[in-house]
């Protein structure tokens, strides 16, 4: 029996918080960028735009920033301050993360913004938006899902991927790593990939600096020996002790006697030794994608026109579409939430006629909806949530008349909905009731060929006389003689047939009972009159035509 060899890949995005904000504003990619904690000045300038959403506080992606290997002492203290919350609003803004261009200028996380500006006055500053970080993390996980069904959230900007058994499907380790990097790039995140026999080793390999690092099976310890100790994110006291011993690389730490290390440094020392040897401690915890996917865009200015809002919406929808495309899913509905300068939130639920991941179509539908329901004030933040769904594949059949393409149909339905309202367009569906005009409108989804009516059904249906209904039925005065109508609508009744009695729901509050008459009036109208037996009133249901 062949032994199963575990292989793991790790996706690691350097400067992840900065990368998450660059993903929202790609124009920042080439500029030195710092992401700072919100200060009191930021809060006063934009009170209606909370950067740290209550829903994200419990999940704590921001809190993890403080525990990153490169996190500064002040941020560690903030992250471990006890209560799980977002970054505290302090008097002074501090640098949470900086991109590579800013780091080249000497900027480091933990500095105050003033210190950072003293080193590089041309810095571009963005206040932390939790939604950007969460969305980027989910996007990275979803990109990994496109390659393997088993992925693990390894922390901020780190995703572990179980690639065991993918060789026959994708190729060797290098091919798998390239594919992972490509998928990460499509969702806007430049990731480094490491492949090794354990998650820890793969993570260290990814952080070695090269875009793709493959560690051959069984050579983890030798390959990672040169890696600096700082990659392990050890606790500060332990890192200081090891530095005092002159231990600067993983190889040197792994070479230390394990028992002696345990005696001197305790459990933390043993754990550090295991990590240096590339051993995993925690079991693999597979990540499940959430039921709805969200993207956020905070703008530094207030948007008061629909055209400008459409541009922002377009970028948000393109990011969502890229995430959906990575895992071959589509969206069947959108929830748009706009934070307004007034402090209120404008929420719209936009339904799509067909599951789609076409950003242009989603933008068109959303824009049409917002045209008919515009936000009452200027917009400061755009949050779009999609509900992923699998788009049905409807193959065409030879000889069958062509059906509207999904995109065309969705577009025309959106325009019609904007024109006549959501209650005015759809597919008529008969309700199982004898009540008059028992019909409802449902979203229009033409059936596939398998649901075509049989020829027997078609032949059985005879084209008959059709009623033109009055909605609501018009109450009319009818003169009755010997129980039969003789005059209606101020006209003489030439002939009448009936009554046809129907009733229903007598067991409920919506009880109804009526007699229906087919009536030929003197002016040639052929009508259907109804006599309500409960209210004793007459109404004109419709005219045969």
């Amino acid at each position, binding site marked *: 029996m062949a032994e199963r060899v575990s292989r793991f890949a790790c996706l690691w995005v350097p400067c992840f918080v900065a990368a998450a904000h660059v993903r929202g504003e790609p124009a920042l990619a080439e500029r030195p960028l710092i992401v700072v904690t919100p200060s009191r000045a930021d809060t006063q300038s934009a009170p209606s735009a909370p950067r740290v959403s209550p829903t994200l506080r419990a999940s704590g992606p921001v809190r993890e920033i403080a525990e990153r290997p490169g996190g500064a002492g002040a941020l560690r203290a903030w992250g471990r301050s006890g209560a799980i919350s977002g970054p505290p609003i302090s008097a002074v803004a501090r640098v949470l993360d900086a991109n590579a261009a800013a780091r080249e200028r000497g900027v480091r996380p933990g500095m105050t913004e003033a210190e950072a500006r003293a080193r590089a006055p041309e810095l571009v500053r963005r206040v932390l938006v939790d939604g950007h970080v969460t969305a980027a993390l989910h996007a990275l996980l979803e990109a990994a899902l496109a390659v393997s069904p088993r992925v693990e959230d390894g922390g901020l900007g780190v995703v572990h991927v179980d690639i065991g058994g993918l060789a026959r499907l994708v190729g060797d380790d290098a091919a798998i790593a390239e594919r992972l990097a490509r998928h990460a790039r499509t969702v806007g995140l430049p990731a480094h990939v490491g492949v090794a026999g354990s998650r820890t080793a793969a993570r260290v390999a990814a952080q070695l600096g090269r875009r793709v690092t493959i560690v051959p099976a069984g050579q983890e310890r030798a390959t990672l020996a040169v890696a600096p100790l700082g990659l392990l994110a050890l606790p500060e006291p332990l890192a200081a002790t090891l530095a005092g011993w002159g231990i600067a690389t993983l190889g040197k730490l792994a070479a230390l006697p394990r028992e002696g290390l345990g005696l001197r440094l305790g459990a933390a020392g043993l754990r550090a030794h295991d990590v240096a040897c590339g051993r995993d401690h925690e079991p693999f915890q597979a990540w499940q994608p959430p039921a709805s996917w969200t993207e956020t865009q905070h703008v530094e200015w207030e948007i008061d026109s629909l055209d400008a809002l459409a541009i922002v919406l377009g970028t948000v929808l393109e990011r969502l579409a890229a995430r959906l495309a990575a895992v071959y899913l589509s969206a069947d509905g959108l929830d748009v939430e706009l934070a307004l300068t007034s402090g209120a939130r404008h929420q719209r639920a936009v339904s799509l006629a067909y599951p789609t991941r076409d950003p242009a179509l989603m933008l068109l539908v959303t824009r049409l909806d917002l045209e008919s329901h515009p936000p009452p004030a200027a917009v400061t933040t755009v949050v779009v949530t999609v509900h992923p769904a699998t788009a049905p594949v409807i193959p065409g*059949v030879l000889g*069958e*008349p*062509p*059906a*509207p*393409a999904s995109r*065309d*149909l969705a577009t*025309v339905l959106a*325009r*019609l909905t904007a*024109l*006549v309202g959501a*209650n*005015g*367009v*759809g*597919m*008529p*569906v*008969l309700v199982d009731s004898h009540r008059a*005009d*028992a*019909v409802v*409108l449902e979203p*229009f989804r*033409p*059936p596939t*060929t398998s*649901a*075509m*009516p049989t020829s027997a*059904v*078609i032949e*059985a*249906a*005879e*084209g*008959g*006389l*059709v*009623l*033109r*209904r*009055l*909605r609501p039925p018009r109450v009319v005065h009818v003169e009755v003689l010997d129980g*039969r109508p003789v005059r209606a609508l101020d006209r003489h009744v030439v*002939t*009448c*047939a009936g009554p046809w009695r129907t009733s229903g729901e007598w067991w409920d509050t919506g009880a109804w009972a009526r007699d229906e008459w*087919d009536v*030929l009036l003197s002016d*040639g*109208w*052929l*009508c259907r009159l109804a006599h309500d037996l409960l209210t004793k009133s007459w109404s004109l249901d*419709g005219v*045969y*035509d």
Partner: protein
Amino acid sequence: MEILAKAAAPSPLLEEGEITEIVGRLSSGRTSLLIRCLRDITARGGIGALIDTHDVFDAASAARGGVDLHRLLWVRCGGRRAVAMRAADLLVRCPGFALIAVDFGEIAPHLTLTGAYRWKLAARRHGVALVVLGARRLAGPGAALAVETVRRELEWTGPPAMPRRLARMAVGMRVLRCRGAALPAGEQVQWLSA
């Protein structure tokens, strides 16, 4: 009925890319003729759309007449004729629909000759049959075929003095305009059961 028989197969009444008008008085059978067109289209797997200006469409009658309601897009315009015109403008430009039926009812809107030709060109581009129902003609020379319906006879069941049921109606159809297709001259009569 010869005209309707032609309508079932490749039909001059429902010619792709052309406008057909059905006109007549109320209770003359014109709506029944329109529903029959929808039946012919949906029964063959085509997708139809009905623009209902005055919300008069009776789905139960249509289903009894054989229309596959799952293949019918119903647009209710709430009596707004301008909205109905705009909806027709949108739908006739959407490729994939086999039939666009516009029911303007008793009060027809004003449709310029330019507008009619614009519809015709759009219908021709996308291969859609456009059927317009109204009390009078709208499209003028833009329509390839115009048919007028007239009620000829009614049949009731039961004693003549006290009939029990409306049995059927005889509808006469007269071709007002026919361009390019050979349709029989004179009036054709069709019985429609109630």
